């Protein structure tokens, strides 16, 4: 044998690869047939599994409902759904985004669900002209990157923070401890709340959300003698915090941002969660009776946080497809011009992709359930 296996194998692989190169650049669906909905898809992008999976599942359900309704109403145009499960990890997101971009059938994305992964991939979507409507990423900076494809179906934290602050003031709290979990979302929101509260705020550093023990925070809260506490962070840490504060004898009113608006907070906090006030730019799940009924009929449960926003986002894409848009550019153009009521709010976007004229809602925990009856703040 004269040539080694390595050389022969290499030669074979090279040859075949070159054939691949010649056969066309990347796998692309034929986007010729303009009228047919063949291969047209709306994608979900966010966490379905992993630690942050809950949130993504809520969103995916909103999307599923919207598409199911559309497909039922339009037998001649069946839209598909593609799910890109990033597990909320900015490390995994780029390879998924590239896959979505390479799939020419994907005309719009509901997501990315979190702010971190948004930062990692929105630039890609922008470059590829693939329009996105996020139903949940509320980081204020996201709309300031000049991404023309970026939209969100709810207001950002820069609206939520002042809203929460005014609620706290309205409740007559005079000494408010402001705490965060050092995460981008939590710290960002806490900073806005603290600024808005002015000298009523007592800064209380950060806590480590992964830690089990918050006794140092409890001690500090007791020591500071606060009558209210705002925590910027997510529900798991909030639950532990609420419980330990109550056990430690701190009875200050608790305020949170939308990251805590999840039944996981009630599960983690138990009785200590009762009476907490949670702000969110998302609408209460029962704000639209038709949507509520349809959702309950399909999934046999109440919609959860961001479910309605996801439904709205999907509706916009579906409307674009309905209007005959079969490529990303025309879908994007359609969104830019869109102005119609959704189930949560009037859907119309400004230049930066922020939804126009939104509101902040206050929720509370009552009898072990999320209660939206506090309604709009302001």
């Amino acid at each position, binding site marked *: 044998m004269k040539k080694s296996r390595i050389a022969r194998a290499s030669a074979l692989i090279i040859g075949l*690869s070159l054939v691949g190169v010649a056969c066309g650049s990347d796998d692309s669906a034929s986007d010729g047939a303009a009228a047919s909905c063949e291969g047209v898809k709306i994608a979900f992008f966010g966490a379905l599994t992993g630690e942050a999976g809950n949130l993504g599942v809520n969103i995916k359900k909103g999307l599923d409902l919207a598409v199911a309704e559309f497909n039922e109403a339009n037998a001649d145009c069946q839209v598909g759904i593609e799910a890109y499960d990033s597990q909320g990890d900015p490390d995994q997101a780029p390879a998924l985004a*590239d896959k979505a971009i390479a799939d020419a059938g994907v005309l719009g994305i509901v997501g990315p669900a979190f702010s971190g992964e948004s*930062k990692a991939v929105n630039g890609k979507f922008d470059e590829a002209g693939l329009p996105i409507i996020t139903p949940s990423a509320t980081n204020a900076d996201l709309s300031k990157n000049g991404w023309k494809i970026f939209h969100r179906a709810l207001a950002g934290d820069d609206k939520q923070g002042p809203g929460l602050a005014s609620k706290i003031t309205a409740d007559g709290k005079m000494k408010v401890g402001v705490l965060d979990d*050092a995460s*981008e979302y939590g710290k960002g929101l806490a900073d806005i709340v603290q600024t808005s509260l002015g000298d009523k705020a007592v800064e209380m550093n950060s806590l480590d959300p992964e830690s089990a023990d918050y006794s140092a925070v409890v001690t500090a809260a007791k020591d500071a003698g606060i009558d209210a506490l705002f925590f910027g962070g997510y529900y798991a840490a909030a639950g532990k915090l609420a419980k330990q504060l109550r056990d430690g004898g701190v009875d200050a009113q608790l305020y949170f941002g939308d990251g805590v608006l999840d039944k996981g907070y009630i599960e983690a906090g138990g009785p200590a969660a009762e009476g907490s006030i949670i702000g969110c730019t998302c609408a209460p799940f029962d704000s639209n009776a038709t949507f509520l009924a349809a959702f309950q009929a399909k999934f046999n449960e109440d919609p959860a946080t961001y479910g309605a926003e996801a439904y709205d986002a999907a509706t916009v894409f579906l409307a674009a497809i309905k209007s005959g848009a079969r490529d990303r550019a025309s879908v994007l153009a359609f969104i830019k011009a869109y102005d119609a009521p959704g189930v949560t709010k009037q859907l119309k976007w400004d230049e930066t992709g922020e939804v126009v004229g939104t509101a902040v809602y206050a929720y509370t925990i009552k009898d072990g359930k999320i209660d939206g009856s506090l309604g709009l703040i302001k």
Partner: protein
Amino acid sequence: MSQLSNLWTRFLSLNTDVQVRWKSMSRVQRLSGYVLAVLALYLAPWWPKIPGIGWLVNTPGTQFSTVLNDQVIIFVLVALGLNVVVGLAGLLDLGYVGFYAVGAYVVGVLTSQHASLPWIVALPIAVVVSMLVGVILGTPTLRLRGDYLAIVTLGFGEIIRISAKNLDWLGASRGISDIGKPPSIGPLKFGVLDPKPYYWLGLTLVFLVVFCLYRLEESRVGRAWTAIREDEDAAELMGVNTFKFKLWAFAIGAAVGGLAGAHYAGKVGFISPDNFPLQLSILFLAAVVLGGSGNMAGAILGGIMVAWLPERFRNFTDKRVLVFGIALVLVMVFRPEGLLPRRVRTKSPMKPASDGQEVTQ
């Protein structure tokens, strides 16, 4: 599995067989073989299009060429670097992600956060800074032995991540966006969408690192490292400045880790502390040991496996990590020295041994 294990052993001996034949070939034949193999690697983004092999290597659900760069190249680079520390010098480092983070952050800080140097200028700075950090961390800690070193390095990895997360100067938890990209060379455009140029760049970096590390391994330095790993006291009594060489191993490992971080930052353009969790250190270590600690080929194979397998089996969804854990146990039970165990080199760097036989185990 014992049969499987036998199969693998036979595959390995086949390899040796090939190597023997390889050595018997003429220079021209060997050179052309190398060129072909390298070319095939550069064409890797198109492998999924090859019938058969394509099905095997393709990553359903994610873009193959992105995986090649963002996962495979990064893990291979990191495994190569960590292999110097763990495999050659025998220092257990559980905080290697720290150096990877330093490399990425230096590029982030210099090209976006506080300055706007071009990536190509920031890259060597990142490597040097990582190396310096390695020296700074190594100086006080390398006097510790074994498992004490492990826990201290683990602590360092955490300290770096927590600092990045809480220092506004480093972008805190917001991370750093708009990181500079490598300069485009002619038709090679380092843009946002096409991962292929990054892969080619990364692959070139891998070759460069392999070349450098090979030279080190086959020199006085490599011998000193191996001697330290085998018996540190005896090495020192044979005149090896153990502290200096351990520090060098740490620094070189750190530099390669930093290089990987810098390449990653240039590619993705956005980094945040979430990219550098403690668990990543453990994955890195798993890559090295899984492949075969102390063997460069092993480290590369381990890096590829740990990076590529989870993407290949993405349809396991949330069971991916579970399977990974089980696989680690199984591989260690049946191949405790890794998939490609370390070999004792028979030839000296200057003169090939007359018989050319390799001694395994």
